[in-house]
């Protein structure tokens, strides 16, 4: 990983926690308000490929962790970024009030990811144009990917309550 990038990251932003778990990987923990500026900083440094936006429910700590995985396409002439390196940018937001600014203005492909996280975790993305359901047909009391949603219990209660039809006819 480029030393200069790490240095300039820490000098540009305070309150960042930067780690290098592997030679070709950088983990950045940023406060919620800084996410957009860090993303745009990294994009400016050539990290123009947003792999995914993910969300982890740390229920016991009462937080959601949004995870942005970035790397470089490596086509820009001016950047020293290597496409084999990934940057994992993480931010923690409170579980009770999960809102964060949408990153669509920087990366267009963040749109379905954020829509999915909104649907499956209940995180609101400010500035997202269509936070409509993406996958689900039914409504669930708790967004299903949260840790307190017990799918086995749900299946037992809900699908278990649907009776078979015309039992006596089944074995003709």
């Amino acid at each position, binding site marked *: 990983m480029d030393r200069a990038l790490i240095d300039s990251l820490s000098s540009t932003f305070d309150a960042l926690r930067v780690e290098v778990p592997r030679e070709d990987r950088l983990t950045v923990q940023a406060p919620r308000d800084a996410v957009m500026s860090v993303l745009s900083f990294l994009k400016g440094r050539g990290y123009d490929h947003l792999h995914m936006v993910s969300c982890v429910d740390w229920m016991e700590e009462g937080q959601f962790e949004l995870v942005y995985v970035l790397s470089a396409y490596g086509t820009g002439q001016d950047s020293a970024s290597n496409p084999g390196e990934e940057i994992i940018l993480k931010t923690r937001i409170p579980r009770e009030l999960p809102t964060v600014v949408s990153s669509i203005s920087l990366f267009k492909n963040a749109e379905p990811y954020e829509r999915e996280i909104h649907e499956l975790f209940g995180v609101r993305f400010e500035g997202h144009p269509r936070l409509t359901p993406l*996958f*689900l*047909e*039914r*409504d*669930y009391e708790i967004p*299903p990917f949260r840790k307190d*949603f017990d*799918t*086995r219990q*749900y*299946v037992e209660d*809900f*699908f278990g*309550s*649907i*009776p*078979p*039809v*015309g039992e006596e*006819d*089944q074995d*003709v």
Partner: protein
Amino acid sequence: MDRNQLVKWLKAPAKMGHKYSLHAVYFCTGCGIIEVPPSITARWDAERFGVLPTATPRQANLFLITGYVSVKTLRAIIRTYEQMPEPKYTVGFGSCPINGGMYWDSYNTIKHLDRYIPIDGWIAGCMPRPEAIFVAVTHLWTLIDKDMADGYKRYRKHYAAYRANQEKVLRGLDWPPLFPVEEQ
């Protein structure tokens, strides 16, 4: 020759027509669909059995439910099934529609498909091979011959119960009942 036998004899050519021209709806409901293209192309050639994919449910009489059924797909399946003309036959592919299969604990897939639409036959496997599909077709012929592939009749008979289950899962259906429900 009594009346019943006469009717049977008269109906025989129609039955043969149903048997040997099973036209399947073109609908990829789940992962089992992956074995359908091999079956209908050169290597296995399902057309030898009279099985062909058909563009629209209005012209089809065979519905292959290929694998797991999510709640969202169930709505489309019911719509499609109800559009098919009678007599119509349904075959469930693989483990998932029988008892949940791999997705037995998923919040978004149907566990027992026969609680929502009638199924005439099930094929075991995950997923069933093309050979199994062909053997299933021959079994279906036998069932049609013996008037045992009567899913569509069961649908009519128990429509109220089927519709109730469908409504329960899908939270209301946005189309009118196929059969008058009061009749039950």
